């Protein structure tokens, strides 16, 4: 069932998480190969988003361990995990509504000296330089994700698809080695979805790893190197898209629900 990954960038081992008596993740284990585009699929309620939240540090697992580049990360607060190089997007975009697109992006900067109060007073030159540098980088990322014209619009005035792009752009600002994408192309028109996936492929070639939850089978089958299937809180299949597609256990899980 599980294939051995060379040296995984992410290793999840026997994670358990229950909410008020209901088990959301029930002994899930998996691993993700570096510089891959790995998909995570499964019927609704399988626990995929919950697992992502646990990996990103937003929930604390009841049991089990998670290793990112051999560093144990379960139990660490989210901001430390981001600093280690692991970032996540949200299934429903969590854009900062009353701030502009550019502000949204610039906040992703990992080391912006101006974000530390003392620096404003004792290192004003460095603050200015950092801020210019990050604004320039934000504009580059905006061009990459085709949001350039919206730099000074309030995030709440964006369309649904644009908000999804903003999610991705923001996450890229944190310069992650591993990106967890929670349904990156849901609700996005096919052309945009295709260019989004092209962008991901391009970034992968630059050395980043992508682990994504998706329901769109086209994307999964055509764009993922490997697919992991979750059902009722644990992994039930793991392999190439073709092998997973033909796997009877997987088929039954989707039909049986």
């Amino acid at each position, binding site marked *: 069932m*599980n*294939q*051995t*990954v*060379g*040296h*995984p960038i992410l*290793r999840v*081992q*026997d994670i358990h998480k229950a*909410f*008020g008596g209901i088990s959301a993740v029930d002994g899930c*284990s998996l*691993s993700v*190969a570096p510089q891959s585009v790995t998909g995570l699929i499964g019927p609704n309620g399988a626990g995929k988003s919950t697992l992502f939240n646990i990996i990103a*540090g*937003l*929930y*604390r697992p009841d049991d089990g361990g998670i*290793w990112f580049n*051999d*560093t*144990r990360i379960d*139990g*660490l*607060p989210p901001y430390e995990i981001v600093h280690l190089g692991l970032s996540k997007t949200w299934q429903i975009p969590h854009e900062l509504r009353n701030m502009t697109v550019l502000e949204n992006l610039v906040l992703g900067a990992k080391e912006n000296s101006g974000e530390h109060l003392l620096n404003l007073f004792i290192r004003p030159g460095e603050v200015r330089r950092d801020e210019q540098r990050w604004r320039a980088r934000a504009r580059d990322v905006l061009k990459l994700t085709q949001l350039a014209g919206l730099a000074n619009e309030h995030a709440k005035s964006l369309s649904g698809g644009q908000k999804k792009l903003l999610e991705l752009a923001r996450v890229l600002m944190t310069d992650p080695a591993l990106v967890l994408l929670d349904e990156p192309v849901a609700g996005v028109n096919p052309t945009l979805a295709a260019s989004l996936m092209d962008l991901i492929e391009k970034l992968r070639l630059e050395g980043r790893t992508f682990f994504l939850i998706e329901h769109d089978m086209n994307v999964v089958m055509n764009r993922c190197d490997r697919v992991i299937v979750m059902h009722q809180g644990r992994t039930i299949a793991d392999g190439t898209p073709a092998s997973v597609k033909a796997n009877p256990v997987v088929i039954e899980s989707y039909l049986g629900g």
Partner: protein
Amino acid sequence: MSSVSEANPPAETPRLVRWREALRPTPRFRRQFLRAVIVAVIFLAFLAGLAALFGISILQYTLAGFRLSSIVIVAAIGLTVIYGIRGFANFAYGDLMTLGAYVALFVNMNLALSLIWGAIVSFLALAVVGILLEVLIFARLEGRGPVPPIVASVGVGLIIQNGINWGGTTQQWIFRIPAVTEIPIVPGIGFHWIRDFGTFVVGIGFVVSVHILLTYTNLGKAMRATADNLELAKATGINTKRVTYAAWALSCSFASTAGILLGLIGVLSPTMGFNVILLIFAAVIVGGIGSPYGAVLGGLVIGLSQEMSVPLLIWLERPDVLHLEHSTAYKVAIPFIVMIGVLIFRPWGIAGRPPAFARRVFFMERLTQVLGRRGDATEPVQGEGGG
């Protein structure tokens, strides 16, 4: 459930059997009852110990504590119901209590009727006020988060409190009740029929009524469902609007009764309710927001902790100890300290449920990490993937 076979009808009527089944305590009830009895026995032993050490007159503080608890319980039930169903802390609650007391005072004084009538009129009047508040103000703030209703409730409280002040009644009043002599139990403790016994009876009566309402009536079950999960309740066809009105009516009526009781044991002043509102919040938080049973427990904790701290404070006033002046004025700080402790260590209270998600507990986690480091937090691990 019935073990009666159809072939042989029982000697008793089916209805009697149903009543017996309904009244038979479930195993869960038996367990909780046992727990309550154990706690009560421990408490009584504690009191006996105190009496042995300091003389029996110390029990007057226990009496005062139970009396205060009765009032706080009635008020806390009203507050927690709205907190659970509408999801916000009603900062006008103290002033609603004051309003209830003053309406009763009006009936008592200006209409020269017995206080009982005053209480009834006040109960109904405040129920109407509650529904009006919902219709005019709070329905418009639905879905806007916890802060806007708090701000609006502060506004309502300001209007009520200063309206009463303006009505010319800045002086203090006392209810007109039949004069009753205290029944001395032991030197130093008197048992006042109306003030003590009346408060207890009313308190217990209200608690029982709420229990019956919530457990056995359709409205009560609807209220519990709505407090639990508003969307789900709407989806299952419950008329949540009507439930909300009922909750407001109940909440404000209870406030009126609590206010009257408060006026009975002391005097009426325009700030009487506002002065105790933090106590009521403390009881609700300690007991668990949204849970009337928690409100009972919280009320007991708050009332007893405040009053029974008085002997300790008096001891601190002695010149050879701390020489703390006006030490008994600090008794109101004790429940706040309890509440702050609960907020730090167990914010969902005694009867509440811990929140399922997000981790905003960095303080406690950091503390535990610092105190007892997680040894394997960043240990590198060799190994293959899979698993």
